[in-house]
């Protein structure tokens, strides 16, 4: 075949391809084709690397139905894709966008092609060079080869390390109860504490938060809200001694102060003292209930004096006991 004929054939083939390409681009695809074409560009969010057009998953089918509806309504392709991008970000596109950090993925093949073409072009311009016998390796070139190889190996090892470190682990599911110990409760609303306590009702670790919540209600004078939480802790066999004593003492005081039930209050505080006969808070509340509720001033004075003899009582409590003791000795009423 002569060179002229060959050139004519090449031009003819290129012309046919150009015409075919033009027709392909300019012809508006049918709606079904459009749906398939758009679907083939959208990654199924619940699959591994499959388009919604190819995935049999129900979610992909639902997304294809959505695309189909939009196409039937005359919505342009890009608007349909933009709608999905508005919900899923670019992660829903099968092909990475030709911008930002993924631009290099698009440019790399072109660059490789350009380098290849350049090398071929250079060899064609220097035909003699191809046939040159290879120069015998010198000691220097061998050293360079070894150093270059080592550098390359370390470079790829480094990339692998960086890549493995950048793998994003999802954290283990958080346990509400496990988080309770570290939580700064001053930042937490009553509603949040109520929700945590309700959701972890069977977990003894929640008693701390339950008592903290009850104390908030107690301090605010909201006995009705505090009562069920103190009762829950008092009846919990897994509660610690300190938790049980706190709950029983508060229940005792609320029984007296809220309902004027002196007998119930005395019984509850005795239950606390059965756990720890030397509990300062239990003894103090017992003295107050006996003094304020039962009018047993002498009994209260004895308990106050016993408490003051204990050097372990903190200064604030000591001051309060001393004040009450003075009033009781003077025959004054319970404040």
């Amino acid at each position, binding site marked *: 075949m002569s060179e002229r004929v060959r050139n004519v054939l090449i031009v003819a083939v290129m012309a046919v391809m150009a015409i075919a390409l033009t027709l392909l681009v300019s012809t508006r695809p049918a709606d079904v084709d459009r749906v398939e074409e758009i679907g083939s560009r959208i990654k199924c969010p619940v699959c591994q690397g499959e388009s919604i057009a190819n995935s049999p998953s129900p979610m992909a089918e639902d997304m294809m139905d959505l695309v189909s509806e939009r196409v039937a309504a005359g919505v342009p392709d890009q608007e349909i894709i933009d709608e999905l991008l508005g919900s*899923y970000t670019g992660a829903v596109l099968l092909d990475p966008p030709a911008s930002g950090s993924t631009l290099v993925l698009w440019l790399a093949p072109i660059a490789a092609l350009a380098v290849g073409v350049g090398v071929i072009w250079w060899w064609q311009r220097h035909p003699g060079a191809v046939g040159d016998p290879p120069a015998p390796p010198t000691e220097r070139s061998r050293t360079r080869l070894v150093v270059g190889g080592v550098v390359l190996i370390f470079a790829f090892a480094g*990339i*692998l390390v960086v890549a493995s470190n950048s793998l994003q682990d999802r*954290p283990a599911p958080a346990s509400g109860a496990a988080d309770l110990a570290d939580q700064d409760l001053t930042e937490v609303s009553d509603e949040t504490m109520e929700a945590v306590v309700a959701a972890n009702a069977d977990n003894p670790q929640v008693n701390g938060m339950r008592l903290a919540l009850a104390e908030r209600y107690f301090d605010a004078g909201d006995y009705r809200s505090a009562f069920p939480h103190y009762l829950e802790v008092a009846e919990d066999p897994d509660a610690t001694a300190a938790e049980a004593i706190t709950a029983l003492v508060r229940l005792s005081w609320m029984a007296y102060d809220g309902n004027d039930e002196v007998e119930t209050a005395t019984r509850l505080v005795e239950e606390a003292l059965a756990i720890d006969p030397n509990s300062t808070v239990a003894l103090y509340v017992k003295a107050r209930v006996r003094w304020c509720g039962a009018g047993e001033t002498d009994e209260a004075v004895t308990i106050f004096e016993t408490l003051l003899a204990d050097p372990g009582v903190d200064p604030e409590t000591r001051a309060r006991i001393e004040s009450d003791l003075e009033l009781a000795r003077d025959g004054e009423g319970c404040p």
Partner: protein
Amino acid sequence: MSVTGQVLRWTGLAVVGATVVLAVVLASRFGTDPGLVDSPLLGEPAPEFALAGLDGSEGVALSQLRGEVVVLNFFASWCLECREEHDDLVAASESFSDRDVTFVQIGYQEDPAESFAYLEEAGRSAATLYLADPGSRTAIAYGVFGIPETFFIDTEGTVVGKIIGEANALILGATIDAIIAGERPGQQITGDTRQQPDP
């Protein structure tokens, strides 16, 4: 060195350099789980929906809840993590029911009757709206990759928070507390999600 040797050397270096750059780019993308990227809805108006109840009842439109904080959770009976967080959602829903906070739970990729039967067994909150999502239109509009996923919508109708994975009462409550205080908690990742039922 001959001219040929120089050309080959520079060509080799160019190929190695390009390969390294390409490898770095690919490696940097390894860490990007599409299910963990920040939702583009954060800071945007919440997509509107009007859905019937899982039991076929009248249901609700999101616009009807304007002025309240809405906690929007996607769930299914086949999702283990959804079962794990269920009691916490119920507790938080009931606890915040007096604070203009409404919990909405939408069945995901499941027959509404099956979702409803599961709720009958697991227990429901009287304060929560349980809705069906035919054709997954609402799940698609919210860009759900897997469940459980929970969105937080403020009183102005803006998406201000999202939890990917199992939530608990403390996280739910703290997020709601922050929204009531005028903050925008953003996205939190707490654990795994399920894309579809186990085969």
